[in-house]
């Protein structure tokens, strides 16, 4: 399975932020949209960083003056990206071994979506369930 079939049923929205936004604004966006990470993009919309819940917690614990921090201060950059034609299984393996939970998906430099480790595990589970379901009905109706 390709990443594009994971993205297809996720809707077109990808949540992004400029690096100049305040951490407070970013936290509000995460809460409002019930998501775990924002992709940091430049003026042309090209992703160059990511700010996840985990980055926020880690920096918050170490920060003297968290109110003054910007997304650019706390983001992880550069960011690893995938392409829509990548095998979901390979990307899942990379995310597990590198301990990323979010992967932006980029096509010809343009951001087209983001997959989470949860999306990939769910897709893989459904693939297995589907194979089992198909076999079961065949056995039952044989």
């Amino acid at each position, binding site marked *: *399975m*390709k990443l*594009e*079939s994971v*993205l*297809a*049923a*996720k*809707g*077109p*929205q990808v949540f992004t932020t400029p690096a100049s936004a305040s951490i407070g604004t970013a936290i509000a966006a995460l809460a409002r949209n019930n998501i775990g990470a924002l992709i940091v993009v430049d003026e042309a919309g090209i992703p160059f960083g990511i700010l996840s819940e985990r980055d926020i917690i880690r920096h918050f614990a170490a920060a003297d003056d968290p109110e003054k921090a910007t997304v650019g201060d706390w983001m992880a950059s550069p960011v*690893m*990206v*995938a*392409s829509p*034609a*990548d*095998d979901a*299984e*390979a*990307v899942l*393996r*990379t995310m597990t071994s590198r301990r990323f939970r979010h*992967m932006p998906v980029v096509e010809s430099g343009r951001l*087209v979506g983001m997959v989470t480790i949860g999306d990939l595990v769910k897709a893989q*589970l*459904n*693939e297995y*369930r*589907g*194979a*089992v*379901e*198909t*076999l*079961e*009905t*065949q056995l*039952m*109706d*044989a």
Partner: protein
Amino acid sequence: MSGRADGSQGLDVAIIGAGPAAFYAAEALLRDGPPGTRVDMYDRLPTPFGLVRHGVAPDHQKIKTVTRSFARVAENPGFRFFGNVEFGRDLTLDDIRRHYHQVLFATGAQTDRRMNIPGEDLRGSHPATAFVAWYNGHPDFQACEFDLSQERVAVVGVGNVAIDVARILCLSREEMEQTDMPRRVIDALSASRVREVHLLGRRGPAQAAFTNPELKELAHLADADLIIRRDEAELDELSRAELEARGDHLACRKVEMIAEFAARPAEGKRRKLFLRFLVSPVELVDNGGGAVGALRLARNRLVANESGALTAEAMGEFETIEAGLVFRSVGYRGVPLQDVPFHERWGVILNRLGRVLDSETNEPATGMYTAGWIKRGPSGVIGTNKPDAVETVAAMLEDAAAGHTLAPVSCPQRDFPALLRTQGCRCVTFDEWRLIDAAEQALGASEGRPRAKLASVAEMLACLDAEGEGPSRLASAAG
């Protein structure tokens, strides 16, 4: 709980499409929906079951038994089927809004993906979608012509559909006589002069999309030798490392089988089926008369990209293979439906986990849902559509419980199918489908086959109108 225009309680749902996703959704709705839930299922064809009828290979009859569990869903008193009704032509979104609380689109992927290379549209180059639909008796594709007088055929892609296409091209007459293909198709395929089929994979054995039972079948065809080049069966370093990291025994087995088949000597059967790896067509070459005569292939190596996935990269070496018939089996693609938001890039209905989204606001469009290939794209086996449909139905029932539904002003039970008939639409009920089914099975039995498909809507309808006039009329309707 939703009220109806006639004052009774219950949820009225229209499902567009009658493939696996539609049936799995109907099953979940009728089981988990509020008391009085009713489902009307519409399909543009007189026959239900979507790709189980028109995709699943005709020599894989066992897989088609899944339709028995779908037929059990159809026995539910809350279920009605209206075949031969096309959404966008015979039924509009306005009709739906006036009659139903919710609509679920499960129309599958009706067309093919493009390769975007020069020569793709030369005569003799066809999408596998058309060939598959033709040999499976899909009424819209019976006029297609494939030049089976060619000796050499190329099939681009190594997914399970490509394997189906290659296998069907190599079946012996005897094997074909066990299938449910229309008689005309069997005759055309039997007269085929095809001697070589070249299956072209752009990546290596470890990345091949086909599954192991399908590969094994290729190696045991009565009429064709499976031939794999040893150098192409061998794994590169990256694939070897990937396979190790995956720890996936099915993938390891696939690679082993490929190596085993590559080491086997050919038995001199009538046809040769070449399974190639690490080659990408870059151009289909004109034979001088506007038809395809050859394919120019680039040789590839695998490279790991940033995310760890292995992709094909051209090495700058080329080869040419002659072929007068090409089937492009690089994937299916969904088509937009009238008044339903569509996501062009992915070729699916614009949705989030099954809720159709308004294309301007990206917020859920009230009462509209989707499931199956038109929701998530053309991948997965029949059963994969079950968890997918169940996810959508959960969203539908959550919204219905919260009162977020369409507001119908009339009842489907009262107006349908009468309304369709006044518009000149001859819709086919599930009981009528059973008559078509019985006629096809009877016709098949008379030829010692599991079924012989009727391949035109006219034949199917004639067979219904012949009902009561005895089996001879049924047989003659089948032509």
